[in-house]
């Protein structure tokens, strides 16, 4: 137990050091705190974009999903190059506009285009909150899951893990701002990629090499080897809409948007897109897939008419990698080397979780300061006050997310269904961020939409997407209510993801209102 604790402590110490270095190099201005002076080079940009995109989804959620569903997740991995393309095709125009307009948040740019209305700014800020809070929760849950396996002999290990992760993350963002977030992200991204590769390789080696591994995989149940997977979740419309919309939603989320603003030039984003597409997809297909599939071989699922359950030696699907590391590494490499390597992967998991949590908290702080505090609550406040309010928001948002995670981790909680798997939380968050797509495309490339269209369509999109998420029936409606019955019938007819339902309504309303409004204006002017 000493080696893992030592490795984790060194890692956490390095993070705090980066926070302090970021503070020392910062200029104490809002633009510097949030965008690192818009001078981020390609290496740091590529690493921070990758680290923000991947999170604990990569090292806990994805292996957990492969473990639960099987090979279908290899196809889900193909969403990553779509995100890579979006980094350049959407990110570069966003960067250019941000540089010329001096924007810091998404709302700055969108509201500048449509006219600076209160409603639109608040709505765009709301999208940011709806995306960021579940994403932060996901990372804190990962910290808890990690601790639950590593310190399984202790009571409240899950709670302690989530609390430690949230405290350290909030601390270094509050101290250093974007510069330290980007630096730590670079370190965390390197650890993340190393962790994925290390996990995949050690699993394949432990099973006797690639041929033996593939032979074992071919013996898995048919549902593990085909679409829609063991639970039937990945029906084709679901697979297609998730693969198409999740990466775009993950790229136009507030934290990534700010990374585009902070990129130095087009070349920075071009290289970032290239590294992102090649490296991360490769890690998913050749490292994460073997981990999850190997998990199914070593810890067979319990498949029954009631559904799919993890093996009794695996607490939850998301814990598969940690359980395997705990089992495999000491057997493969001996106690000391095994413990050291598995500690490195554990640190990589923490890195993945923290790199996304810090980016989202940092973006949330910018949203609150720019779009709410200095605009509606305290107009004309000083730079110092803005920074201070942003830092306070980081603390409040972290505490809020932590409370939700702790409540949701109890089986009797109504949030427990949503909190069951990390991937579910990720998909929930993306359902909201993708709703900014019609507006973003209009602002960057078309320029024919109107402010009312933007407000009405975004509201409709958010509402519809929320109704189709798993949280809606848990919180607001009885199973027998006509709305739920109608939603279930629609889901059964076309099993698309909630984000797609919202986006279809959003896009149609946006076009319709824009056309009607421009015709009315034309008629009036005649």
């Amino acid at each position, binding site marked *: 137990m000493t080696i893992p604790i030592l490795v984790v402590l060194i890692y956490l110490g390095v993070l705090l050091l980066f926070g302090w270095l970021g503070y020392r190099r910062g200029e104490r201005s809002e633009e510097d705190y949030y965008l690192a002076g818009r001078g981020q080079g390609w290496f740091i940009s590529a690493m921070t974009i990758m680290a923000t995109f991947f999170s604990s989804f990569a090292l806990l959620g994805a292996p957990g999903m492969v473990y639960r569903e099987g*090979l*279908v997740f*290899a196809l889900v991995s193909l969403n990553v190059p779509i995100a890579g393309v979006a980094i350049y095709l959407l990110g570069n125009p966003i960067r250019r506009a941000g540089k010329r307009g001096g924007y810091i948040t998404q709302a700055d740019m969108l509201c500048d285009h449509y006219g600076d209305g209160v409603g639109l700014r608040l709505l765009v800020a709301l999208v940011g909150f709806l995306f960021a809070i579940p994403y932060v929760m996901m990372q804190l849950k990962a910290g808890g899951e990690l601790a639950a396996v590593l310190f399984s002999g202790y009571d409240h290990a899950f709670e302690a893990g989530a609390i430690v992760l949230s405290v350290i993350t909030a601390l270094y963002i509050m101290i250093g701002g974007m510069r330290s977030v980007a630096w730590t992200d670079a370190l965390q991204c390197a650890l993340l990629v190393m962790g994925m590769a290390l996990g995949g390789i050690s699993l394949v080696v432990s099973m006797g090499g690639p041929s033996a591994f593939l032979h074992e*995989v*071919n013996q898995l149940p048919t549902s593990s080897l085909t679409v829609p997977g063991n639970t039937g979740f990945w029906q084709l419309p679901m697979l297609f809409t998730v693969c198409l919309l999740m990466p775009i939603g993950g790229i136009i989320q507030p934290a990534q948007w700010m990374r585009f603003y902070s990129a130095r030039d*087009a070349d920075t984003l071009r290289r970032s897109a290239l590294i992102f597409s090649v490296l991360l997809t490769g890690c998913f297909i050749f490292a994460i897939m073997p981990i999850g599939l190997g998990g199914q071989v070593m810890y067979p699922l319990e498949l029954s008419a009631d559904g799919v359950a993890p093996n009794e030696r695996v607490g939850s699907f998301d814990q598969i990698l940690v359980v395997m590391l705990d089992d495999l590494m000491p057997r493969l490499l001996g106690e000391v080397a095994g413990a050291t390597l598995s500690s490195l992967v554990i640190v990589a998991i923490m890195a993945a979780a923290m790199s996304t949590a810090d980016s989202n908290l940092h973006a949330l702080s910018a949203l609150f300061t720019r779009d709410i505090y200095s605009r509606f609550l305290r107009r004309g406040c000083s730079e110092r006050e803005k920074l201070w309010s942003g830092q306070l928001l980081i603390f409040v948002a972290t505490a809020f997310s932590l409370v939700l995670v702790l409540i949701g981790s109890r089986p009797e909680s109504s949030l427990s269904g949503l909190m069951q798997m990390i991937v579910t939380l990720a998909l929930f968050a993306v359902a909201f961020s993708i709703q900014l797509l019609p507006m973003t495309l209009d602002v960057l490339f078309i320029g024919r939409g109107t402010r009312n269209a933007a407000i009405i369509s975004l509201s409709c999109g958010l509402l519809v997407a929320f109704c189709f998420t798993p949280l809606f029936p848990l919180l607001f409606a009885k199973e027998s209510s006509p709305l739920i019955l109608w939603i279930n019938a629609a889901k059964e007819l076309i099993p698309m993801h909630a984000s797609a339902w919202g986006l279809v309504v959003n896009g149609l309303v946006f076009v319709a209102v824009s056309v009607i409004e421009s015709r009315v204006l034309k008629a009036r002017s005649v």
Partner: protein
Amino acid sequence: MTSSTTESEFGESRESDSDNPSVTKVARSKLSIALAAVFCLSVIMGTGPGVLLVNRPESISGIPLVYAWGILWYFVQVAVVIVASLTVWRSTGVAESCRTHNAPSRPERNSAERGEGELPR
């Protein structure tokens, strides 16, 4: 029909694309369309209806069919991104950095059209 050397945003000197910019532009546009078409095809085949072609529990050279299908389209997508990055995106980035820095962005143009003065800071 001129060849010129320009200085990019990040201070490097670069040769402009070709002696005949219009020919380069047409070639680049055709390449962009071809790459976009291949990428869309890979999305449809890899994660859309194309999956039905391989949705059975068989293997090819020991690799399960669905897994091999994913790997195939991964290589196609990565190839498209590499080619785009080295050709279309690179030249767009250079052209962009050569353009005058005074040209307003679309959001700026819109606010100017509305007659609004200062941008939010």
